[in-house]
């Protein structure tokens, strides 16, 4: 079998990439072969995936999702589509993580935060000026739907605590900790593993300021807890939180979520 614009087709020996394009979508000017755009013709092998796109053309809703994931590595879409990820806190870390995971096409995202969007958030958080005053979870749901309408977004406008957290995140495959306060980070890790010792948590600690981005690392603790950050750079007077370093940490977290999902350990 081969896959053309996410539709399964029978494989016949002797097919070539541009030959197929001429047959399926002769006006296509972008040819993506196994997740990578290629300019030249080549023989098609059994199992190959190709996507033909006409630049500037708005695809039908049915076709859009397959075109959106055409630059994913082969096999990624099916796995992430079936995954469910919790994000606890949608501030600097959580808003960037949510966007990365929505662009990936994670099937279901569960967001929780009690806060509203404030002007001082906009130096690093993925909201817009017109959303000032809106509940963060609702503003983020709106932004995610504009990015990828195929992701199911579940919102909880609550302050998370050791009581409601295991309930809200009981069904997710991976939980991402994206709080600001160290006591909340500790609360999440401790209460979640108390209820679900076999689930994965991706937490962060140490990402403030403008220090070397390479000091931010992902480290495994125990068997199921990943900790992202330099572990020392706390937000404090004289050391603020800014988009680049917060973004580095957020994307470490999002990438670890992807690795866990693709690793087949769920």
């Amino acid at each position: 079998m081969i896959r053309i614009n996410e539709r399964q087709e029978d494989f016949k020996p002797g097919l070539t990439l541009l030959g197929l394009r001429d047959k399926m979508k002769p006006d296509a000017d972008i040819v993506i072969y196994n997740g990578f755009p290629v300019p030249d013709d080549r023989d098609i092998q059994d199992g190959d995936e190709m996507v033909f796109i006409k630049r500037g053309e708005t695809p039908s809703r049915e076709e859009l999702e397959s075109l959106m994931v055409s630059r994913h590595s082969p096999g990624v879409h099916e796995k992430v589509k079936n995954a469910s990820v919790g994000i606890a806190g949608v501030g600097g870390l959580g808003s960037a993580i949510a966007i990365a995971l929505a662009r990936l096409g994670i099937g279901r995202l569960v967001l929780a935060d009690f806060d509203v969007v404030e002007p001082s958030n906009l130096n690093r958080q993925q909201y817009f000026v017109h959303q000032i005053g809106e509940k963060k979870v609702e503003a983020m749901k709106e932004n995610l739907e504009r990015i990828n309408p195929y992701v199911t977004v579940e919102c909880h406008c609550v302050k998370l605590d050791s009581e409601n957290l295991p309930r809200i995140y009981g069904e997710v495959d991976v939980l991402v900790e994206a709080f600001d306060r160290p006591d909340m980070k500790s609360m999440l890790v401790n209460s979640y593993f108390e209820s679900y010792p076999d689930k994965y948590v991706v937490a962060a600690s140490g990402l403030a300021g403008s220090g070397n981005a390479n000091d931010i690392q992902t480290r495994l603790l125990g068997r199921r807890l990943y900790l992202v950050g330099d572990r020392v750079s706390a937000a404090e007077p004289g050391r603020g939180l800014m988009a680049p370093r917060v973004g580095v940490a957020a994307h470490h977290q999002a990438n670890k979520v992807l690795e866990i999902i693709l690793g087949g350990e769920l």
Partner: protein
Amino acid sequence: MTLTVNGEAKTLEDASLTINELLEKLDIPVEHIAVEVNRDIVPKARFAETGLNDGDVIEIVRFVGGGKS
């Protein structure tokens, strides 16, 4: 007993010790931490009942602030 705490060997006179007692000795408040014993995360609710043994490898993570609001 001898424990490895955050990569450093620590020899203690105690014959038995719980996680809570170790944290008290090291003067580490419990509010901001997560504790791993021999590659397992031990939730805070079990600090008082979890005894440590000679040779245990303990990792105490102290969270620092920043990320959300």
